[in-house]
């Protein structure tokens, strides 16, 4: 009978990521009994792979990869499904010095063309020679992606002749490329070295206080940094056992996540706000968690990945307290793929701490003036995301680049050994955001002492339900409509207290286009859904009301600011 891997190793001392490379970390973990376990949506164990087996199988597969002609530095795209096959392939790449590029499977109804276009662009950008996919997707992906990349299933690759060769992996070699960043039109591959990932795993494991008895549960996809690093590499490098359900099974039955935490007495699990929200909604409606479920072992309930919605988190804490869930377990954090995954973590056992500040002072003076929490009308509540990880530094700077003092709102800059090598083969974009070893996150925030408060994610990125969308893609979709010109459109998210970040599109409407306003809005909405897969609120505004930069380009940030301040008024529907 299949059994799951134990929580702790019997003899092997726990080492918290103090290794030079991922291969060294896996070789060490392979001396113990811990590893990865995969569960079904009914919480039944489906397969299990200890770090020892993972290391053996990955080494064996690395010989097949080399036998196929893959050499050190080659990029190998991997369909990032939640399965042992993906993990074995990921580490096979590590052992032969190839650079894995995890890509998402198609998970929406329809939108086939959009998926194929995105995948082709990512394959081209990474220059992947080979794309390994699961057999269920082989015919769909194989028949629709027609470029130079060779598409092979996870099982076929094992049939290649074996070339037994020892490859030396060095700390400065690239360990993976991740495409969570950048628009569909111009994807940007975050290039991470072994040194980057190891230093972040050290910081993260110390941030969450990983210790003997730690057991992780995750439903996060392997094509996102939170799933790939937070709950795969971060756990492997600290020899922590993980119990997985796939993101698909989580979306189908969210409460399985909580049942799995109870099942093996897990201590550590993470989700963006929307995952907590989904559980609360389901628990309040039709599905119910059985009474005997016990969540009291859950020590760190991390929150990250998108702007944290305090009300959603409080509600989850309230609803699940009767199952032993401790509110003090909430651990808000902040990070991004460009610094591997985690940049700041809250102090342990404090729960979610918030800061309530004056809206007026925030907009007019960019100052976070603390006001009483019950003054809802004049205030905004933000979540405190904790301190920057070990060996890293954080600064808040204004537009001119001056370093700001406490409670002044500005751009968040990070530096330290986790900051990526750059966007893969894109020097220009890299130089735009990393200068003198400081990375400009593009996010806005302020400090209270050493604690970071994030007030807005990247002025460009639109994060909806944990997924990243790029305003350029939304604007591009609108500009494709006959008669529309570039610069007529500005897309961004607007924070609404009850629903969180709402994707919003301002579109200049000219009568000369010959459209009826209502019909035009519908056409725009559908066009964006078809091309980008995002449902946006469309707001028509008078011609020439969007602010431009001195070089005539759209200033998205100013457009949003002018709209919030009422300087741009929506046209009334006629």
């Amino acid at each position, binding site marked *: 009978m299949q059994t799951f891997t134990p929580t702790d190793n019997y003899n092997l001392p726990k080492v918290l990521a103090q290794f030079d490379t991922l291969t060294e970390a896996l070789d060490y973990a392979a001396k113990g009994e811990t590893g990865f376990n995969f569960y079904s949506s009914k919480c039944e164990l489906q397969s299990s792979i200890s770090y020892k087996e993972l290391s053996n199988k990955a080494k064996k597969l690395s010989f097949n990869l080399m036998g196929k002609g893959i050499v050190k530095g080659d990029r190998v795209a991997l369909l990032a499904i939640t399965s042992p096959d993906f993990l074995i392939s990921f580490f096979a790449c590590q052992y032969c010095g190839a650079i894995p590029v995890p890509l998402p499977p198609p*998970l*929406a*109804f*329809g*939108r086939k063309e959009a998926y194929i276009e995105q995948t082709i662009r990512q394959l081209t950008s990474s220059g992947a020679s080979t794309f390994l996919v699961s057999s269920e997707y082989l015919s*769909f992906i194989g028949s629709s992606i027609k470029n130079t990349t060779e598409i092979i299933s996870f099982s076929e690759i094992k049939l290649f002749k074996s070339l037994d060769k020892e490859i030396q992996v060095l700390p400065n070699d690239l360990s993976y490329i991740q495409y969570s960043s950048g628009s569909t039109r111009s994807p940007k591959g975050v290039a991470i070295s072994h040194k980057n990932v190891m230093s972040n795993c050290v910081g993260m494991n110390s941030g969450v206080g990983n210790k003997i008895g730690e057991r992780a549960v995750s439903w996060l996809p392997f094509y996102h940094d939170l799933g790939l690093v937070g709950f795969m590499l971060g756990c492997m490098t600290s020899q922590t056992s993980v119990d997985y359900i796939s993101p698909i099974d989580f979306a189908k039955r969210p409460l399985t996540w909580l049942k799995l935490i109870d099942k093996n007495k897990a201590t550590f699990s993470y989700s963006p706000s929307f995952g907590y929200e989904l559980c609360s909604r389901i628990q309040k409606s039709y599905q119910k968690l059985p009474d005997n479920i016990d969540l009291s072992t859950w020590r760190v309930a991390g929150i990250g990945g998108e702007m944290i919605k305090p009300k959603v988190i409080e509600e989850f804490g309230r609803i699940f307290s009767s199952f032993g869930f401790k509110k003090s377990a909430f651990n808000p954090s902040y990070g991004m793929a460009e610094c591997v995954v985690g940049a700041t973590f809250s102090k342990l056992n404090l729960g979610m701490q918030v800061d309530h500040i004056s809206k007026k002072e925030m907009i007019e003076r960019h100052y976070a003036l603390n006001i009483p929490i019950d003054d809802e009308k004049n205030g905004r509540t933000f979540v405190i995301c904790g301190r920057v990880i070990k060996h890293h530094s954080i600064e808040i700077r204004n537009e001119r680049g001056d370093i700001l003092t406490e409670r002044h709102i500005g751009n968040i800059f990070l530096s330290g050994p986790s900051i990526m090598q750059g966007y893969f083969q894109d020097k220009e974009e890299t130089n735009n955001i990393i200068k003198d070893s400081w990375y400009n996150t593009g996010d806005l925030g302020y400090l209270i002492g050493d604690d970071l408060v994030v007030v807005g994610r990247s002025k460009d990125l639109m994060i909806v*339900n944990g997924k990243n969308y790029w305003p350029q893609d939304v604007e591009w979709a609108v500009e494709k409509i006959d008669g529309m010109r570039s610069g007529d459109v500005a897309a961004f998210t607007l924070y609404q207290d009850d629903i969180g970040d709402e994707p919003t599109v301002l579109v200049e409407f000219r009568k000369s286009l010959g459209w009826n306003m209502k019909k035009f809005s519908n056409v725009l909405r559908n066009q964006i*859904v078809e091309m980008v897969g995002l449902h946006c609120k469309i707001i028509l505004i008078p011609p020439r009301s969007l602010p431009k930069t001195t070089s005539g380009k759209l200033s998205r940030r100013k457009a949003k600011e002018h709209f919030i301040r009422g300087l741009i008024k929506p046209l009334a529907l006629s």
Partner: protein
Amino acid sequence: MKAELGSDKSSNVRKVVLEVLKDFNKKGIVISDSTSFVGDLEFDSLLVMEFISELEDQLDVSVPINILPDIETVGILIVNAKRIVREEHG
């Protein structure tokens, strides 16, 4: 007996799909075979999974995840759901 149940189910697939869809039709639009999940019903990838899960329960089948990219409209879903019910229940 089982075969009878199966064919009965197959003919009822359309009814079940439309019934399940009611809970997901927030704007209350009129549903036809050409109704698009993404364009008309505003399904995002989270909602797709919630819907599939509900449909699986009602039809007592398991919907393979790799057919999703081909399912543009309600009509195409019904055709596929009928096929799956036939395969699983005979």
